[in-house]
Each structure stands twice: as C-alpha cells, then as structure tokens.
C-alpha cells in the first residue's frame, strides 16, 4: 500500500465560503478532527478573484471578494479546522450507490458506514476515512463547448471565472473589444473586470426581453444591452474576430470583437457527488438534498453552490454553518427517526427548487424558505404547491421573478405534506 491511511471525524471537500463555513462551525462545535481539503493552492473559493465589493451580506458596500475569502479562511482556521490546500480528492473507495431518489436520505450512522476517500497532494497519496463527509465543491459556468455555440475555436473566449483569474490573479492581457453574454449580476461583474483590464465592453447580450426597471437601476448607458438575442456563432481562426447574434425575430448581427465572455449558466461541479453514487436533482443537477443538507447517502452532506448554481457567497457560507448541526447529530447517532423523503419538483418555466427533498419532521430550510429559479420573467407570480392533486399552499410574490436571480417560497406548508405521498409540485400561475 503506497497510500498513507488516516482517519478524521469530518472531511469537508472544498474551501470556498460554504466549505469554510461548515468547517468553522463544526470545529467550533466540537465535532472532533475536522479537515477541509482544497484542490487549489489558495483557499477561499471563487471570491478570491471577485474584486468587486458587496461580499459579507451587505447589498451596498461590504467587503471585496478577496477580503471576504480571507475572512472565511481565518474563521475556519481559528475555530480549529485543519485546512489543507493543493490537495485533491480523487475518488471514493466505497462508492456504493445509495439507490434511487425514493430512498433518499437515510439515517443510523455506524462505524461501518464511514466513508473512505482517496486523495492526491504534493506530499503523496492518502486514503482518508471520515465519519461524515461534507461536499462543498461549488459550481462553474458552462463553457462555450457545453453551450454548443458553433464556429471556430479562436482564443479570446472566456467564462467569468477564467477572465477574473486572468486579470486579477495573473495580470494577463485579455483583449481590446469585448462582448459579454449574460445580463445577470455575474455578467456585470465580468464587464467590470474587463474595464479594469482596459478592455472596451462593446455590448452585453441577453436572451431575455428588456426590463424597464432593471434599465433604470443598472449602470445605464455604459454599454448597449442587446435583448432577446442569442449567440449563434464565433468567428476567427487564431483570435476571435466577431460574435454572431440572432434576435428572436430572426435577424442576425455580427459584432466585431476580440474577446467574448460567457457568463452565468452555472452547473454544479458534481463529479465527486456523482462518483459517490449520490442521487442528483434533475433541476439543479446538484445532489438531491433535504433541509438538513443530507444527500441520498447517509453521512454525506452537501452545501453551497454545488446544490444550486449559484447563490451569493454569504448564502453559501450560511448553509455551511447551518449544516453543522445535522452533521453533529449524525456523528452522535442522534438522527431523528427515519422519515421517507418526498421529492420536490417544479413545472416550467420554473427551473429548480432547493432544497428538493423533505427532511425529518420539523426540519426547515435556511431562513425558513426554499430558493427557486425561473427560465423567464414572471410578473407577480403565484406559486402553487400541490401533492397528489391536493393544494398545500399558494404564495404570491411581491416582486417579479427574473431569470438568473433567486426568489423564494416560504416553507410553512411542509407540515401539510404527506410523508407517504407523491412528489410535491411547485407551479407558477
């Protein structure tokens, strides 16, 4: 055996805000040896390269991303969590499939139910046995290939994550004229990064219709916003020369540029979750989970943007902290009596809901509400909750539901859901 075998109480995979939050709270609560593994050489996750402010829970002002990342790291280390960077979990040794969605989160931890993971780092190979695992592997933006944008394969095509690292961490030259695809907050962050790097943002593009309110609030006039438009091609062989857009009405337009940033369209980094046989939620594509952050595999929890691509860093951090209590209950063997989890599902144009399983009696999601996304704008929608044809609740939203931004559904109806019933459906009317 060339692997160094070790045992910990809790292994947290990923040291972004969610993983660091979980590690901090667990270590502070006496969970035993809590080890956080981060594959990057620096901990802190995506905020490390988000130089805009607004982190730390405040809407205006607040910290910059790097400051926030450092605070998260400090808090975890100060609480006594062991943070190891440059260390990658490469797989599960006991990757038993936990079964179908209907089985859902189970209980009754036992020493035999410990999890064994293989790890690679500069110090060598390890095999770590953990009594509980918290997955906090985050999310990423879909690259050009996954978006099936045809055309050449020139340089100058970025996601926001790559762009921010290139500019803020590596000081690399980017280009001179850029088009930003996406009008969500992350798209505006990309535009800011481009301007910082001296790149002219010639247009932002969204497939959504114009929103008069957003136009008033948002950085008006800084660059044209092209609405109801999608990218249908990239031109250029060595370097990007243009982006071809198609308007909903069929007209096409090629915008000359040497840089394009594909923003948003987040997908969970769910490789480890899937390799571990966790049941995925078909909407989020992250692990299916209940209000106690329990996945379909006993003793494996999940937090942060792995569960929902993406919420703000502060939400991810809060989830990490909130997961500590159920993890401690698992370690102590005091999990509430097993209850069959009921899946939650949404109807179009809603995209997903999180959490997406019911948990033990009395369990409530963070801040007592579920988070949702929609594919298209809904003005003051009513969210109707039904189970087996029976209406459980009906909630009117005060604000429009907008693509790329969270809106919420209160969890008060959970008591009315039949634990022996079918899928709970959420429909916008």
């Amino acid at each position, binding site marked *: 055996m*060339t*692997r160094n075998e070790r045992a910990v109480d809790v292994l947290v995979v990923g040291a972004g805000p969610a993983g660091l939050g979980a590690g901090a709270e667990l270590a502070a609560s006496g969970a035993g040896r809590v080890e956080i593994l981060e*594959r*990057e050489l620096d901990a802190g996750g995506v905020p490390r390269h988000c130089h805009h402010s607004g982190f730390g829970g405040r809407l205006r002002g607040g910290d910059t991303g790097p400051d926030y990342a450092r605070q998260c790291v400090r808090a975890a280390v100060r609480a006594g969590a062991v943070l190891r960077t*440059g260390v*990658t979990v*490469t797989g599960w040794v006991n990757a038993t499939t936990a079964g179908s969605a209907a089985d859902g989160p189970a209980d009754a931890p036992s020493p035999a139910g410990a999890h064994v993971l293989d790890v*690679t*780092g*500069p*110090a*060598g*190979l390890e095999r770590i046995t953990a009594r509980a695992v918290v997955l906090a592997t985050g999310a*990423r*933006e*879909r*690259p*050009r*290939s*996954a978006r*099936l944008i*045809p*055309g*050449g*394969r020139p340089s100058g095509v*970025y*996601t926001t*994550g*790559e762009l921010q*690292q*290139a500019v803020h*961490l*590596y000081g*690399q030259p980017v280009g001179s004229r850029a088009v930003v695809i996406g009008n969500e907050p992350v798209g505006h962050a990309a535009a800011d990064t481009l301007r910082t790097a001296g790149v002219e943002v010639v247009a932002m593009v969204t497939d959504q219709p114009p929103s008069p309110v957003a136009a008033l609030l948002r950085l008006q006039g800084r660059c044209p916003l092209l609405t109801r438009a999608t990218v*249908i*091609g990239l031109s250029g*062989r060595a370097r990007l020369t243009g982006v071809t857009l198609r308007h909903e009405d069929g007209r096409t337009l090629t915008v000359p540029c040497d840089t394009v940033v594909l923003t948003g369209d987040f*997908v969970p*980094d769910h*490789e480890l979750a*899937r390799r571990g046989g966790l049941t995925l939620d078909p909407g989020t594509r992250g692990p299916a989970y209940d209000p106690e952050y329990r996945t379909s595999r006993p003793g494996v929890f999940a937090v942060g943007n792995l569960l929902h691509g993406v919420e703000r860093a502060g939400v991810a951090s809060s989830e990490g902290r909130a997961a500590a209590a159920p993890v401690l209950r698992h370690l102590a063997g005091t999990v509430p009596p097993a209850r069959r989890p009921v899946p939650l599902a949404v109807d179009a144009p809603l995209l997903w809901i999180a959490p997406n399983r019911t948990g033990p009696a009395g369990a409530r999601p963070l801040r007592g509400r579920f988070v949702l996304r929609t594919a298209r704008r809904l003005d003051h929608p009513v969210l109707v909750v039904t189970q087996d044809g029976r209406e459980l609740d009906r909630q009117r939203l005060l604000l429009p539901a907008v693509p790329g931004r969270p809106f919420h559904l209160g969890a008060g109806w959970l008591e009315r859901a039949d634990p022996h019933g079918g899928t709970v459906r959420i429909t916008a009317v």
Partner: protein
Amino acid sequence: MTPTVTTSGDLPGGATYDVTVIGGGVVGAAVARELAKYPLRTALVEARDDIGEGTSKANTAILHTGFDAVPGSLEARLVREGQRLLAGYATGSGIPVERVGALLVAWDEEQRALLPGLLAKAERNGYHAGRLLGAEELYGREPRLGPGALGALEIPDESIICPWTTPLAYATQAVRAGVHLHLGCRVLSIESGPYSGSDTGSGAAGGRHTLTTSRGPLHTRYLVNAAGLYADEIDRRMGLDTFTVTPRRGELMVFDKLARDLVRHILLPVPTAAGKGVLVAPTVFGNVLLGPTSEELDDKTDTDSSADGLHFLQEKGRRILPELLDEEVTAVYAGLRAATGQEDYRIQAHPDRRCVTVGGIRSTGLTASMAIAAHVTGLLDGIGLDLGTPRELPAVTMPNLGEAFPRPYLRADLIGRDPAYGTIVCHCERVTLGEIRDALSATVPPGSPDGLRRRTRAGGGRCQGFACGPAVRALFEGARP
C-alpha cells in the same frame, strides 16, 4: 547529439539535406521517423507551429483493423500492416491504446442484411475474428444502447488510441535520432535543378530541390510530399498535377467523462448508400466521442463547427445512446479529411523529380502511418536514394495521457521523488505541474497552450479553463524563451 528543432528565424544553413519531408502530420512524422533509422540528413518541415496541427489532431482516434477497406487496395494493405506496427509501437512507447472492440450496429432490416457481406469483406481483408451478434447478445454487451437495434457485426480488435501522442512520439524519436524539425516553415515555391555538391554520402542522383520557405531557402536532394490537405498544391509547385484535394469536414462532439460508463465498445454505423454515418466511441482520455459529420468544402482552413452539424450529431447520438445527450459536452471540434476523389491512398513516386507524393490519406492515416512510412522509404530507395544501413532507433517513452494506465497523480513513486507530480494544476483532467513542466521542456515542446493541452490534457476538460486556464497559460508563457 543536440536535437535540432527550430521554430522561427532563418533556417540554419549547412549541407544539403538528403531528404526533406514536407508536412508534420502523423504521416510526415512517421516518414521522418522511418528515415531517421538510416544514415541520411533528413529534415521535417511543417508550416504550422507544432506537430500534428492539421488534420492529425482532429480525427476519431481509432486504431482500425482495416476490416472494411476495399480489398486489394493499397489502403487495405497499409492499414492492416500499420495496425500491427502501431499497436506494437504504442505498447513500447507509452502511447495509450485500448482494445475495446467495435460493434457495427444495424438499426433496420436493410442494415442487418448488409452485415454478412461486411463480415465476408473483413475475411477478404484478412481479418478473421469478426462475428455476427443477435439483438439479445448486442444489448447484453451494450445495455444502454437505444431501442430498436436488430443485431451487430463485432470486430473485437478495433481499438482506441491517443491521436496526439502518436505523431509526437514519431517526431520526438526522429529528432533525437538527428532529423531536423523546422516548424512555422511554410513551403512557398520549389525549384528543381542540377546538383553537383559533394557534401553527402551519395552522389548517385544528380540534382537538388531548392525550397523557398517562409523562413528562407532549404536545399534537399529528395522530397516527400506529406502535406495532407495541401499535398496537391505542393505537387503543383513541382509541376505535378495528379489530383486535387477536396477538404471533407467532419464535426465531432466530446462528452463528459461521466458519460464514459454508458458505452463499452466503439459503436460503428453500418455503411450504406446514404453514407458512412456517425459513430459513438470511448476515448483513451475517458470521454465519449460522437461524430463525425461529412461535408465537402472548398476552404482548407474551415474547421468551424456548424449549428446544423451539431444538431445532426445530437439527433444521431440520441438514437444510438439516448442517455449520452443528458451529459455535458466537453469539446466540439472539426477536422478536414484530405479527399481526392479516389477511394484509395494516392502514394506515388516521381523518379524524375526525386520525389514521393503521399496523398489522399484520410481517416485511416493514423492507423496506417507506420506502414505508409515503410512504403514511402521503399519508394525512395526505388528512385535512387541510397538509404544505407538502417539501425534500431533508441526507444522513446511518452508521458501517459490514457485513463487505462496509471497517470502521475496516482503514482506514489513519482510523487515521492518529485512533489510536482502530486501538484494538480488542471483539475478536470488531473494534470500535474510535473507533467506540464516536462512537456514544456520536451524534445519537441509545444508552440501554444493548445499544443500543451495535446501533450498533457491541461485545460481540455469539462470546465475548459474556468478553473485552470490562466494558471496553465502562465506556465506556458513562463517557459517561453
């Protein structure tokens, strides 16, 4: 001996080359490697900045048995011989190969009726391990196959191979044995005239070619035209006009590694009058490939993918392996086959020109490359090049990019010796700092981040650089002189 690899500036002067190979694709590199066995002064010139930058980098990465070649054709013979040669060479040099086998799946009665004929054709091509499978056995072998398949022809020896390591291994071995590799060296014109120099071992054939290249003149006694898509143009520069290359574009989609367990074999279409169809195949990197399309073009640089092509592939893929379409797409690319209007290779010696043209090498070129190289060397001998006595080349060991063999991040021995092999830079593909450093200082170093990706897989994974792009670029830039 100091390896000679030049990438910019004027070509080094010096004695006239005995042989110059034009084209650093898999065929040209294989020819250069074969010539490296002989006491000859050989040059390999490539217009682009790397080996295998043209058609060779964008194919279906299959090591064919040649079961479906046209019996009696040159291609049939060279694919059959080349498959054996390359399979052996790959084992010795670390080129990943997996013998997963192929199933030609019949989706309707017409296709099923063609299978016995294909089996008979395989026999005529000297391939005797083919076997017909009924639907039940087929679904037992490929449980995720879409509904409606009627049966299959199994070709157990069809294999998958790394298309990038292969030409690189050839070039590395050739350069280490003394072949000069000149990259970024486009041949603009060719003058052929008498030669009276005395700086070579063989004065038998009088006459030499003067190549005017983008990097200055180059003199050579013999030429091998392995210019792929541009072989017709190079021929014309010598006054030869035997064929025209029409690029035939093939678009391909690479699916995420999480799709790998969906498929066990190379799933080949049954060729019908309507065309060769679309295949689904695992890759040695642990992904799943879907493609190619087939479309005749005029533009030899048009490696764009198209909305129609991708839509077509999705439709085909959904039929073959429905769950594949639920997975993320990691990469989309297009390659250009060098079609010449003839369903066979066009390999021809021109004795009066002291030249061998290697044309019309399409999708089987990777498989046949070593046999083509031996064949071309024989033709050079036949037109007066005194080869001299061959020697065995020192073996080459290429870094392993294949998932079926232990990669550095899983090797405690390597990491123990050098922690850089435990420092993962590209997380999707688990490429370590040690591997990137090795590639940057290799005998044939990459000319671009793309070249680095083909040597290490860095940046080629599902996130396409979201996580590691700038770090990999910084390492590449840091290694530039």
